């Protein structure tokens, strides 16, 4: 009976069509503005560097066309692209370190965050130690890892993992603390065991927080891997940057930075897709959630 009283969510086809075209137009406008912004920035850079206006010297600041040349060389010279093998190999190395570090940091962060979030005593005991660990400058931590573990991929992976860990940990912890008290009480009264509560109530509830942290976390993973490579490595994009810097090849440095930016954007896109999948239950706009 109540089925009839529910306003149907389907919209008139005609209205839907105009709605779609409005959305498409908006998107198009944003993309056009984004491209316009890039053209202005790159064009200005090129213009200033060519004419050495305001002291913009291509030797220090590079020049878009020269950066393009470096980029082209990196991807066409095969095994000769860098002293440490092909450019693809460097990308692969950095991505592997960042990716595995990301997974490791996320896993440890979620497990510890949920554990401490659920256990107040443990949380208060561990609180100062977590703050101490968090206060260690990451560069110092990177050097410690390098000294202890050598120039392989492991220290970079660990540095990436540490950076990711703290972001994810604090979010998971907060997410667990924000679980609705009524829902928890209800699950307990319905006879849920501790593990069932974690699985069905606490984890899904904290997931919103955890996923929000993953966006910045992958950026941190890339940063961690690259910083580690700059400090000391046998392969990787960070090493390429450090070497180009040593050769005063600013165009090479910018070229690699551009590649890193593309990697970060791609990872962000993947995480957004995962987010949409995992949080598909969420209402479309936040203003609606407020009324629940």
């Amino acid at each position: 009976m109540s089925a009839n009283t529910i306003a149907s969510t389907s919209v008139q086809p005609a209205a839907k069509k105009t709605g779609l075209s409005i959305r498409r137009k908006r998107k198009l406008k944003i993309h056009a503005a984004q491209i316009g912004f890039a053209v202005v920035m790159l064009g200005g850079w090129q213009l200033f560097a060519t004419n050495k206006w305001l002291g913009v010297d291509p030797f220090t600041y590079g020049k878009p066309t020269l950066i393009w040349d470096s980029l082209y060389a990196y991807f066409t010279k095969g095994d000769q692209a860098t002293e440490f093998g092909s450019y693809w190999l460097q990308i692969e190395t950095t991505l592997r370190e960042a990716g595995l570090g990301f997974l490791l940091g996320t896993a440890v962060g979620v497990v510890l965050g949920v554990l401490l979030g659920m256990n107040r005593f443990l949380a208060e005991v561990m609180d100062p130690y977590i703050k101490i660990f968090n206060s260690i400058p990451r560069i110092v931590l990177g050097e410690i890892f390098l000294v202890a573990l050598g120039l392989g991929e492991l220290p970079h992976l660990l540095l990436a993992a540490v950076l990711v860990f703290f972001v994810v940990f604090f979010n998971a912890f907060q997410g667990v603390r924000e679980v609705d008290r009524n829902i928890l009480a209800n699950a307990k009264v319905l006879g849920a065991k501790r593990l069932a509560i974690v699985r069905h109530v606490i984890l899904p509830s904290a997931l919103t927080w955890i996923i929000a942290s993953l966006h910045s976390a992958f950026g941190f993973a890339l940063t961690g891997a690259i910083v580690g490579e700059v400090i000391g490595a046998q392969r990787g994009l960070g090493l390429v940057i450090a070497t180009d810097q040593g050769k005063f090849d600013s165009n090479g440095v910018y070229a690699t930075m551009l590649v890193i930016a593309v990697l970060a954007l791609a990872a962000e896109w993947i995480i957004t897709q995962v987010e949409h999948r995992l949080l598909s239950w969420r209402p479309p706009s936040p203003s609606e959630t407020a009324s629940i």
Partner: protein
Amino acid sequence: MAARSASATAPAAGRTDRENARIEITGVTKRFLTPSGDAFTALRDVSFTVEPGQFCAVVGPTGCGKSTTLGLVAGLDKPSEGSVKVGGREVTGITDGTSFMFQADALLPWKTVLGNVAMGPIFKGANKKDAQALARDWIRRVGLAGFEDHHPHQLSGGMRKRVAMAAALINEPSILMMDEPFGALDVQTKAIMSNELLGLWEQLRPSVLFITHDLEEAVALADRVVVLSAGPGTVKEIFDIDLPRPRGSVQEIRFDTRFLELHHQIWETLREEVQRSYARTTGENA
């Protein structure tokens, strides 16, 4: 299929061990520690009994410890003094065979209607298939067939209440605790939901502890009305409601002369408390 037949036999089985459903609250005092370190007394020397299968409403002004009482019976909290017994046994942990319904619905927003209703049996250890079969049956019983795959945010307030009701009743609890369950609904929806609750209650006959501040609702639904005084909560008076069962529509019973008599009688008791509580809160704010 197995789940379906189990659900059909359960009420009869429940009737034989009815004694499990008696709630005895004797001399209960509950104090809380406030953040500033003071002891705050929420309940003082509260005693009353809910007979098996009885519908007991607890009314009282805001802040008289009504919700605290529920938490004690459910085993979510322990009394500072006195004893809470369910089925003759002291409540120590989570009380078995109880269900809760809150004013804010405690539905999992990431689960569908089906998933939410199926949580009860799953928490009890049923496998997913049986749990879902049983959940479908209950969704139909609360009139939500066809909405199994909707998420809570896609439903109206009344529909979410139906889901919460199905989720609370699916385990066929011997005790149902309701904390102002319809408080957030509009008057019409509230009346409809009250009727449906009475219908389902008459089928399963769990003991009900129903917290409300709405006296009309309490008299229309309950067999017994416990009036708590302003905080610290103490039992001021207990009224037995002798309106015949089945009550029929809660909208109609409001015009019954016996209803009006009882309502008037209880209101005389309650009014004093409400005024005292109101004077205190406004006095504190000033």
